């Protein structure tokens, strides 16, 4: 048996007692020292590192959440709600809280799709948005959940960590496609949007104005974000609100659009693509701005699926295209009043100057005929009768006498060839040709023949319906060219009364002799009310007197010498029908431009649309004036 030092052979109680006490004392001292060392650790944590841990504890506890302002409501001129906010629910995910990284997230989305309708587009949009949000931000997956979806999710909520149903206010457009090309819509906030706004103010905002008024007035409509300092538990559930800074709701806007008039114009266009723009010449406010066909903006609010989007893209008539703002049309004869005014004001002709129309016009030295629409011609005409019967020869001669340079410069004053500056994005500029333009754009000299057809609004001329309506407004209000306004009034949150917004009067067109202007208006009056007027139907049973001018934009050049019968030409090759008008002639309250694509003649297709629109506006205006 191996023995080592200190080992005894016999039990000795006293020795053992002493040995034990010895060991117990050493043990106790070591224990006391260990516990002191442990307490040292607590001293370090609780005294020396207190500030740092205290801050981290506070950060744990308190979360600052943004309070999203309610988006401003939009009304029409008569106080009808045209864009509102409706309570809705959306599903949001904090991807970082989902267990299992990317695969976990995919599995979670699979699982969620058994409870809510979730297609590939929703997933793609979600992954897209993820990149635009900060780490630990809640990323929207699906907007506008149905009640059933909300209920199904609520029951299964415990299965989904990091997923939540969030109540919010969803944008809704009660008039749907009728006002799409005016209002635009709001959609999912993306990276491009974030870079264009104050990010701090959009912390909680999930949607933003994408086009139309919603985009143009985004700043006004959005309002100012508030915040809430809340105490949350480890799962992020809010337990207590510590401090709250309320959001300032967006400004409510009143548009100058009159939905009733808009509706009449929309209906009057029927199934044909086209556009109607009506402006109050007194203040430049836009009464109706129709572009047909359109699409339902509500489909875009919660994010549109790829399939639905391609359906809209491929729909006949290109519903996404805003014809009123951006449709480029040859003005045709609707340009004649302006060319005529140029001739009078620049002293090239007088109201009494006469021209003989024999059906064909030749430029000296050339043998190509420029035709009147009447084969035999109209005989002797002055400016009034030339407008009344739309006599091309008069304007061929006049434009030759004016020359392209003077014609361009004068017409430019009416806003042709440049944007009107309306308060909605996406406006086209049209084209007012000039010698310089042709040299720059086509690198070709200007030919005299081009001057001739420019005088009847053909050739290179391109106008938008908005430009045309605005030019008519300036023509009838004494040369005051407005930047047309859609915003009529605005009411900030907390303010009792809405504030009227007025269009800036940008340009007063110089007037040499008011009689010249009156002469043109008289000519346009004859178009509707004269014995040989081209739009006499407009006057039938009207409660007011209208002035106007028909026009035809050529889509397909008929072979020279042949008079085309529009009824025999294929629909898509038929001419566009145009009509401009103003009423009442004595004191105009509305200026209008109508384009009916492939409608044929201006008097048959476009003029009735204008008449219906004028009726809708003026009848209620007259009624209002009769009321005390």
């Amino acid at each position, binding site marked *: *048996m*191996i*023995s*080592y*030092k*200190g*080992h*005894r*052979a*016999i*039990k000795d*109680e006293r*020795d*053992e*007692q002493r*040995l*034990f*006490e010895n*060991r*117990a004392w050493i*043990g*106790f001292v070591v*224990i*006391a020292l*260990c*516990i002191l060392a*442990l*307490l040292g*650790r*607590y*001293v370090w*944590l*609780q*005294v020396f*590192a*207190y500030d*740092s*841990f*205290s801050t*981290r*504890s*506070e950060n*744990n*506890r308190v979360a600052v959440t943004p309070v999203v302002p309610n988006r401003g409501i939009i009304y029409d001129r008569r106080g009808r709600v045209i864009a509102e906010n409706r309570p809705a629910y959306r599903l949001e995910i904090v991807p*970082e809280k989902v267990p299992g990284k990317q695969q976990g997230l995919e599995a979670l989305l699979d699982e969620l799709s058994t409870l809510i309708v979730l297609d590939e587009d929703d997933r793609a949009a979600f992954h897209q948005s993820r990149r635009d949000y900060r780490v630990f931000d809640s990323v929207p997956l699906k907007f506008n959940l149905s009640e059933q979806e909300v209920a199904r999710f609520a029951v299964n909520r415990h299965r989904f960590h990091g997923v939540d149903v969030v109540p919010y206010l969803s944008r809704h457009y009660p008039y749907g496609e009728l006002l799409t090309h005016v209002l635009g819509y709001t959609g999912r906030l993306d990276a491009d949007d974030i870079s264009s706004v104050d990010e701090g103010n959009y912390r909680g905002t999930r949607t933003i104005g994408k086009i139309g008024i919603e985009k143009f007035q985004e700043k006004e409509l959005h309002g100012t974000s508030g915040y809430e300092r809340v*105490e*949350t*538990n*480890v*799962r992020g559930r809010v*337990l207590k609100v510590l401090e709250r800074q309320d959001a300032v709701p967006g400004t409510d806007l009143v548009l100058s659009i009159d939905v009733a008039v808009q509706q009449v114009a929309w209906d009057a266009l029927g199934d044909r693509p086209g556009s109607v723009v009506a402006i109050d010449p007194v203040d430049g406010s836009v009464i109706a701005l129709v572009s047909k066909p359109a699409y339902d903006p509500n489909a875009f609010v919660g994010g549109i699926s790829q399939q639905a989007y391609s359906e809209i893209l491929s729909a006949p008539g290109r519903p996404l295209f805003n014809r009123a703002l951006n449709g480029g049309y040859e003005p045709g004869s609707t340009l004649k009043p302006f060319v005529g005014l140029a001739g009078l004001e620049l002293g090239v002709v007088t109201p009494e100057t006469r021209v003989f129309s024999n059906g064909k016009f030749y430029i000296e030295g050339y043998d190509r005929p420029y035709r009147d629409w009447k084969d035999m011609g109209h005989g002797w005409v002055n400016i009034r009768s030339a407008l009344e019967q739309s006599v091309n020869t008069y304007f061929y001669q006049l434009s030759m006498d004016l020359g392209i340079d003077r014609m361009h410069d004068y017409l430019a004053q009416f806003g042709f060839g440049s944007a009107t500056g309306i308060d909605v994005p996406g406006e086209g500029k049209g084209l007012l040709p000039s010698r310089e333009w042709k040299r720059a754009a086509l690198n070709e000299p200007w030919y005299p023949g081009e001057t001739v057809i420019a005088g009847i609004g053909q050739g290179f001329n391109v106008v938008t319906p908005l430009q045309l309506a605005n030019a008519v407004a300036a023509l009838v209000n004494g040369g005051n060219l407005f930047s047309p306004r859609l915003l009529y009034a605005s009411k900030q949150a907390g303010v009792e009364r809405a504030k009227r917004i007025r269009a800036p009067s940008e340009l007063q067109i110089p007037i040499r002799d008011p009689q010249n202007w009156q002469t043109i208006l008289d000519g346009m009056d004859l178009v509707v009310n004269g014995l040989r007027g081209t739009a006499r139907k407009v006057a039938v049973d009207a409660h007011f007197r209208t002035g106007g001018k028909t026009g035809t934009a050529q889509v397909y050049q008929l072979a020279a010498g042949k008079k085309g019968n529009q009824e025999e030409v294929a629909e898509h090759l038929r001419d566009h029908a145009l009509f401009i008008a103003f009423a009442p002639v004595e004191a105009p309250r509305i200026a209008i431009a109508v384009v009916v694509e492939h409608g044929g003649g201006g008097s048959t297709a476009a003029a009735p649309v204008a008449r219906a629109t004028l009726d809708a506006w003026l009848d209620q205006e007259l009624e209002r004036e009769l009321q005390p």
Partner: protein
Amino acid sequence: MKRWLPAWVGAPRLDPVLLILLLLIAGFGLTALYSASGQDMAMVTRQAMRLGFGLVLMLIISQVPPRVLRAWTPWLYGLGVAMLLATLVLGVGRSTQRWLDFGVLRFQPSELMKLAVPMMVAWYLHSRVLPPSVKSTAVTFAILLIPTLLIYRQPDLGTALLVAASGVFTLYLAGLHWRVLFGFAGLATAAAPVLWLVMKEYQRNRVRTFLNPEADPLGHGWNIIQSKIAVGSGGVTGKGWMNGTQSNLEFIPERHTDFILAVISEEFGLIGVSLLMLAYLMVIARGLYIASIARDTGSRLLAGALSLTLFVYVLVNGGMVSGVLPVVGVPLPLISYGGTSAVTLLAGFGMMMSIYGHRKFLR
């Protein structure tokens, strides 16, 4: 008068000093639990009933003379090892096999070993010459290693550690030579890499997390970080009872069980922690005093070993909560929510009271 009860049943033999200290700690524990459970009175009541059951058990055991306890010891140890083997075969529990289900009662045999191992070692060494010979030492190691390894297999690192410690402490108090002690300490250090190899993955993760909690602040490091934040933000005076935000907002994991000290540190501050540590130290000191006045070798070793084991609880739990030791499942004695641990501890204190009650009166 004819007695129908065993002769050793008589007037309560209780150490009033130890009893008061234990009641103070348990009472403080219930107070802390009320806050840690989110003012769940049902939970507090349940824990109070368990403590009550433990105290009754303590009173009963305190009546049993040390020699009777010693007579039961081999049977108890044998039963414990048998049940551990049974747990391995047919245990219930989440991922680990720790529980034996007796239908009405679910029992954790490893808890029993916390008492049975020091009892068995003390029983064995009681009649041996001390300091222990090489043979005695070897047998002692066998006694403590069998259950330790079985428990480690379950796997329950914390309990294995406590069981092994209780056996080693008995040997230490029996006077095992320093050279041997340090030799084993050195061997254990050298064996650490081997231990790493045989560790389960979750155990390795705990060690990794312990070494660098900030590397994975949302995964495994979360517990340690949140616990440290709770402790540190408590400061010197604490946030006040039921005002701990880390605790009430549920940032502290296992806040009513293993991490209840974090709640105490947050709400009662350094002062509260120091007072609690002082109370534990006083219990240990009282235990060692009882051991020193014990009537025989076995009682002396048992009382001493139980006292020193209490220290392991406190040190490991306190170290874990403050982030200086890895997370192993060791509860804070008499305070952490949970039945078995409290009952085992109180049964152990019952034996110490019995030893106190049957102390020698002459020195």
